[in-house]
C-alpha cells in the first residue's frame, strides 16, 4: 500500500509540472490549449532520444524545455498572427507534433533501461527510486512555483494576466496582446515538455502515445487543486496545483486498487472533469428549486 502511495505521489509531482503549464493557459490566459498533448510527448521524445545519443540527462531535459517552448510558440503564432481560433491552433500543433515526435525518436517508443537519467545521481546514493523521484520532483515543482510567482508579479507577468482577464483593457493600456498570448503559450508548453521529459525518465521509456488524454488529466488536477486546496492568493494557487496533481494520482491509484480496469481510466477522468466543470451550472440549476420549496413552506 505504501509502495502504491509513494508511486502515486512521485508520479503526481512530475505531472504537477504539467498541471502548472495547463494552469497558465487555462486559467491565466483563458485558453484551452490542446498543444500540451503533443508537447508532453515531445518533451519525452527529446529527452529519451537525447539520452540515448549519450547526452547528459539534465541537458536533455533542458533541450525538452526548448522543444516545448517552440511548440507553444507555433500555436501562439497560428492563433495571433493567422487568427486561427485558439482551440483549433492547439489541435493543429498537437497533430503536427505527432509526426514530429515520431521523427525525433525514429520509432514509436524508446526504452531508457539502464541508462543515466536525472534520477540516477540520487539513486546511486542509495535512495529508493520512488524517493529519488519525489525529491527531484519537489525540487522541480517548488523551483518552478517560485519562478512563476516572481514572474507573474513582474510588469510582463502582469501584462499576461491582464491579457487573459480582459484583452480589450490590456490593449487600451498599451499591451501587445499578441506578444503576451504567445509568451504565455511558450512558458506553458515549455513546462509541459519538461514534465514529459521527467515522466519518461521516471518510467524508463518514451512513447509517442503518452500525450493522449493528458489535457484532461491536467484540467482534472487544476480543478481538484482549486476545489480542495483553495485559491486565496497566487502563491497558494500555484501550490494547490501541485497538491491537485498529487491528489489526482492518489485517487487513480486507489480506484485501480479497488479493481477498476485500467482501460476505464480515461472514461473515469473525463467524467470527473465534466462533473467538476459543470458544478457551477449544476448549482445554479439546483438552488432555485430548493428556494421555491422554502417559499411554499
Amino acid at each position, binding site marked *: 500500500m505504501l509502495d502504491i502511495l509513494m508511486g502515486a505521489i512521485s508520479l503526481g509531482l512530475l505531472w504537477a509540472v504539467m498541471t502548472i503549464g495547463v494552469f497558465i493557459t487555462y486559467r491565466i490566459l483563458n485558453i484551452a490549449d490542446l498543444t500540451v498533448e503533443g508537447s508532453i510527448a515531445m518533451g519525452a521524445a527529446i529527452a529519451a532520444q537525447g539520452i540515448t545519443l549519450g547526452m547528459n540527462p539534465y541537458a536533455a531535459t533542458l533541450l525538452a524545455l526548448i522543444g516545448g517552448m517552440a511548440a507553444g510558440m507555433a500555436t501562439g503564432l497560428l492563433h495571433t498572427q493567422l487568427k486561427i481560433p485558439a482551440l483549433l491552433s492547439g489541435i493543429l500543433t498537437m497533430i503536427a507534433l505527432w509526426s514530429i515526435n515520431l521523427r525525433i525518436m525514429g520509432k514509436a517508443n524508446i526504452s531508457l533501461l539502464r541508462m543515466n537519467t536525472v534520477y540516477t545521481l540520487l539513486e546511486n546514493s542509495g535512495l529508493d527510486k520512488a524517493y529519488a523521484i519525489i525529491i527531484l520532483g519537489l525540487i522541480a515543482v517548488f523551483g518552478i512555483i517560485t519562478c512563476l510567482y516572481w514572474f507573474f508579479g513582474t510588469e510582463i507577468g*502582469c501584462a499576461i494576466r*491582464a491579457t487573459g482577464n480582459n484583452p*480589450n*483593457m490590456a490593449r487600451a493600456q*498599451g499591451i501587445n*496582446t499578441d506578444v503576451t498570448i504567445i509568451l504565455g503559450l511558450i512558458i506553458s508548453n515549455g513546462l509541459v515538455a519538461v514534465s514529459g521529459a521527467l515522466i519518461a525518465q521516471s518510467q524508463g521509456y518514451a512513447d509517442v502515445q503518452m500525450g493522449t488524454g493528458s489535457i484532461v488529466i491536467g484540467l482534472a488536477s487544476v480543478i481538484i487543486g482549486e476545489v480542495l486546496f483553495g485559491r486565496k492568493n497566487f502563491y497558494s494557487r500555484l501550490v494547490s496545483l501541485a497538491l491537485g496533481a498529487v491528489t489526482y494520482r492518489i485517487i487513480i491509484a486507489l480506484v485501480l486498487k479497488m479493481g477498476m480496469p485500467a482501460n476505464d481510466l480515461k472514461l473515469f477522468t473525463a467524467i470527473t472533469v465534466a462533473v467538476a466543470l459543470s458544478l457551477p451550472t449544476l448549482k445554479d440549476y439546483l438552488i432555485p428549486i430548493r428556494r421555491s420549496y422554502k417559499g411554499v413552506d
Partner: protein
Amino acid sequence: MLAVKDVYKSFNPNTVNETVALCDVNFEMKEGEFITLIGGNGAGKSTLLNCVAGVYSVDRGTILIDNVDVTRLPEHKRAAVLGRVFQDPMMGTAANMGIEENLALAYRRGKRRGLRWGITRKEREMYREQLKWLELGLEDRLTDKVGLLSGGQRQALTLLMATLKKPKLLLLDEHTAALDPKTAQKVLEITDRLIREHNLTTMMVTHNMRDAIKYGNRLIMMHEGRIILDIEGEEKKKLTVESLLKRFGRIKGEEFANDRALLS
C-alpha cells in the same frame, strides 16, 4: 492635436450587409478642447472614436495625432498617447486583478514593460492619494479585486486609469450610458473635474443632449456617418436642447426629434 482627414469606414464591405459607418469625416481638434460628440444610434460616433483609438482600421483617410500619422498604428501602440473609457463598465478594467494592479497596468501605459516588479511600494502611496481624490472610499481597498466594485466605481476607476499618465487625448465612449442616472451624474462630475484639473484634450461620446450641452467647449453632432453640426465657443455656451433640436430639424427634417435615444 488631432486631425481626422477624409475618414471612410464601412462594415461588411461588398456584401448585402454593407453599412457605411463613417462617410468622409473631416475635423481638427486643438489642444485643450473638450468635444462632446452626439448623434442617434448608428450615427457613427462610437465608430469614429474606435477608429481614432485603432480598434478599427479605416478604409480610407488619415488620422494624425500631434502631426504624427497613426492611421496604420496598431491599437496597443496608439494607447501610449490615449486614455480610454468604454460604455461597458466591465471593459475598462481587469476584474480578477486588484485595484492597485489595474492602476499599475495603466501607469505603465506607453512604457516598455520588463522584468521589474509590476507594482512598487512608492506607487501604492500615489494610488492611494489618487483614489482618495475620487471620494468613493476605494483608497482603503487597494488589493480588492475590481470585480467586486459596482459599475459606477469601475467607471470612476477606469477614468483614473485613463488619466493616471496624462494622455494627449482622452476618449470617452458613452461611459455613463450603462449606469443609473444618479451614478451617471456622479461619474460625469468626476470626469469634468479630472478634465479641468489636468487640462485634458477630450472627446466624449454621449446619447444625452443635456450632458452634451452642459459639458465641454465644443459640440459635434453626427448623423448617418457624417458631421452635420459643429458648434464651439460662445455659441456653444448659449446652446439649449430646444435650439439644438431646431437646428437639427432645419438640416434633417423632423427625424431627429423622433429619435427616442437622443431625448433621454
